[in-house]
Every structure is written in C-alpha cells, then in structure tokens.
C-alpha cells in the first residue's frame, strides 16, 4: 500500500488518478470494526470504545463530503448484533439516539442526505421516529448521501426481495421470465443507491459478515489494520489510494 505523506498529496494523487483511468469513486462502504478491541487496548469499558467510534463517524462523514464522494454506507449495527449482551445493545441504541437527535441539523446544514437500510422490525418506536424524521428532513440534500446500515443483514435483504418478487408473481403483476438482476436489485434496500465501488473493513478482519452480499459483486476490498476509533482522514485516503491502484475490469478482458 502506498503510504501518503500528507493529506494534500493524497488528494492530489486521487485527483490525477481519477483523470487517468478510473470511473470516479462514487460509493464507499465501510464495515466499522474494532471499537471493543480499541477500548480493551486502552483499558477502558466498551462504551468508551463505541463513543470514540461515533466520533470517528463524524470525522469520516465530513471527509467524504470534502472529497466529493457521493455515497457513503456505514455498517453500524448488523442483524446479528442483537446477540450481543443487552447492556451493549442498549448502549449502541442510546448512542444512535444521541447521534440522530444531535447531529441531524449539522448534517442538514452541510447538505448531507441520510437514509437507513436494514429491517425495521426490532427497532424501538423512538428510534423509528427519529429515523423517519431524519430521512424526511434531509431527503432533498445533494452533497453526500450517507447510508446507515442498521439492523441490516444481507441474507435477510435477499430473502425479503425474493418474497416481494414471489408475491408479485403470485398476484400476476410480474412475469417470472421478467425477473433479472435489474429487477431483483430494485427489490433490495439499496434500490436507489449504486453498488459500492470500494468496501473498507477496519481492524484487520477479512470477511464480509453478511454485508451487501449482492451489491459487492464487483466491489474492491481494502482491509485496514487500524481499529475503527483510530480511523482517520489519512486512513481513508490510504484506502482510496489503494482503490485507484486496482484494475477494475468487471470480468472483461483488459
């Protein structure tokens, strides 16, 4: 990986690379991993790690807006995260509530649109209300589209899409032969969002963990050793650099 010396260099190299060979990097998705390990390494309780992680989110959203990235998806809470101890789940939901109440005005001011993907059934009424409010308020914003994956699981998303399609076939509004990748995509949570060009996972783990299984078909993966609370603008620039060094062929011959 090319280590960029300072942020200006990083930005310049991104600019020049962009002009050379690539379609612009439109959509970055991040699997934010390592809050717990960060807390442990600093001998702090888990909550302190999640809090620090929320601070990192704030910074990265801003950076993406500055770098003219159009879509940023953050894997905030997976459908499997409910299996964590109840105090941690409550903590995460508490932080989300704080984020949704305190930050929305700020996002709105910065012309950032926020929306959520994932199943809504296990979320509390309070959270659902905040989510709807945030989505409605920022719906017209154009600078950056921030997507939070909340109670999200890709397998559930695919099953859900299959059910919708089956329902449509059953009541006659759709012909089986008309189901193709495009129609299928239209029934996913991400129907209005382009597929991610770059998926970053922090903390050194190298797996997808039920994230965007369908959408990741041609995404580039960058795995960083940094724990999420330590993820900075520089880490993001490193990942973007790495992305522009890759040769994306979408299965075609070079």
């Amino acid at each position: 990986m090319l280590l960029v010396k300072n942020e200006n260099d990083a930005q310049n190299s991104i600019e020049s690379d962009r002009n050379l060979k690539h379609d612009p990097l439109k959509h970055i998705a991040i699997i934010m991993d390592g809050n717990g390990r960060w807390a442990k390494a600093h001998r702090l309780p888990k909550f302190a790690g999640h809090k620090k992680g929320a601070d990192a989110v704030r910074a990265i959203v801003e950076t993406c807006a500055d770098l003219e990235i159009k879509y940023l998806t953050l894997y905030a809470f997976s459908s499997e995260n409910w299996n964590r101890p109840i105090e941690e789940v409550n903590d995460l939901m508490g932080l989300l509530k704080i984020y949704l109440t305190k930050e929305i005005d700020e996002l709105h001011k910065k012309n950032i649109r926020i929306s959520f993907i994932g199943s809504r059934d296990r979320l509390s009424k309070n959270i659902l209300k905040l989510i709807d409010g945030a989505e409605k308020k920022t719906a017209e914003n154009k600078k950056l589209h921030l997507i939070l994956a909340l109670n999200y699981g890709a397998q559930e998303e695919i099953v859900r899409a299959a059910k919708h399609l089956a329902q449509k076939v059953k009541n006659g509004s759709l012909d089986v032969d008309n189901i193709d990748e495009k129609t299928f995509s239209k029934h996913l949570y991400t129907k209005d969002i382009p597929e991610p060009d770059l998926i970053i996972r922090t903390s050194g783990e190298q797996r997808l963990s039920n994230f965007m299984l369908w959408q990741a078909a041609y995404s580039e993966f960058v795995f960083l050793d940094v724990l999420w609370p330590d993820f900075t603008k520089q880490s993001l620039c490193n990942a973007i650099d790495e992305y522009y060094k890759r040769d994306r062929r979408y299965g075609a011959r070079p």
Partner: protein
Amino acid sequence: MLLMNITKEIGGTVQDPKKSNLLTRILSALIMLPIAIYIILNGGLALVVLLNIISVLILYEWNGICEKKPFSLLFVFQALCASLMIWLQYVNSPYLIVTSYVSLSAVVVISLISRSNFRWALLGYLYAIIPTLSFLLILKNSGGVVILWVMIVIWSMDTGAYFAGKNIGGPKMAPKISPNKTWSGLIGGTITAVIFGGLYAYFQKGANIVLFENATILLLLSGFLAVVSQVGDLAESAIKRKFNVKDSGAIIPGHGGIMDRVDGVLFVAPAVVFIEYLLYV
C-alpha cells in the same frame, strides 16, 4: 460490603477510638483490600451485586435510624425499587428515567400509607441509589480504574485524617455534629489523598482516562474529592445525631454499620460523574 468496610477499616476509628483495636483493623484491611480491589477493577457482575447489597443494607439501617424499625413494608418497597434501578442502570435500559420518577413517587405514597415521614423515606431512598447509580455510570464511562481511584482518595482521606487528627489535634471542625473531627485531620487527610490519588493515577498511565490526563487537574480533583468525602461524613453524622444514634447499625461486629462505612462516597460519587461529563463534552 467489603470494599466500603475498608474505608474505615483503616481510618474509621475516628468516631469510636476506644472500641477498636487498630492492629486488628489494619490486618483485616490487608486481607480484604486485595479482594475489594479485584472486584472493583474487574468491574463486572460481582461489583453490581455488591453495590446492590450495599444499597439494600443502607436502606435497612436508614429505616432503623429514622423509623426505629428497620424491617417494614416501606423498607421492602424501597429495597425493591433501589434494586430495580440498579439493574436497569446496569443494562443501560431506556426505561431508567421513567422508572426513577415512578419509584420516587411510589416511595412517597408508600411512606404516607404506612404513616412514615415521607421526607426521610425519600432521603433514605436517594441515599441508597445516588452513590450506587453514580458508581455504575462511572463504571460504564471509564471503568473500574476510576472507581478504584475514587476509593483510594476516600481511604487515604480517612486514614490521613485519623493520623493527623490523633497526632496534631487542634481545633475541632464541627464539635456539635462529630466531636472527633479536627481541622488538622481535614488538612492531613486531604494531603494524603492528593499524594495517593496522584500516585495511583501515575501507575495507571496505561489506561486512557480523561480525568488522569492533566496532572494539575488530577491533583486538584483528588484534594477536592477528599474534602467532599468529609462533607458526606458530616452529613451522615448529622442525621445520626438528629435521631440520637451512635452507630448506624451493627452488621459488622465492633465496626458499626454500613452507612458509617460508605458515608464518604455519598457526595463523591455523583461529583465524579458530574466532573466526567463536564470533561467529556
């Protein structure tokens, strides 16, 4: 029980010097200190159970002092509410705030039904839950490392005050409330607390604690909290004096009750929570 016990285990003879044998106290402290430190630093379920037991014992003694009968419908109800609050706080339940309002008004209603003084019932309930909930908040935000620091400050204060008061003596602080407390004890205790609070934080440098980052702030805080712990001490003495009680109970033979052991924490714990939130924001 254990951890608070040690508070006065070392220096607690301030209030009843004749009753105890200093050597036995120091020895038993040396046995219990490692256990207490382990439970605090581990910061898990054991600490929550311990805090819950302490809060119930506080209520038991409180009702013994203020109502003259420790075991009553009011006590059972206060104990249940306090335990519920502690466990809701432990799991970070979103229902904590609602429950606190409901339980506060319920305690008032029950005390009125059982013809008790609702002011004392309410005060006892707050006495039992405010320090424990504060400790749980500190546990969540910064972990056992900070709780142990708080305890070390309080233990040092008590110990330093005991020896300074005994060896220097001089004018009394509040002869009407607590005849054994001297100004020299307060100063000596505060200095001891600053020294040991500072040393402890120095050895915990590996932990990224916001409170420990700035040496000046840390030392000032240690001293400030030490003084605050004496305010809690005096408040508890004042209540006992008002009801003409000498020891809050006799749960630990020869040592008095739990309330005598935890009075220092009463105002210190919420003060630490407050300071942490100030520093975090």
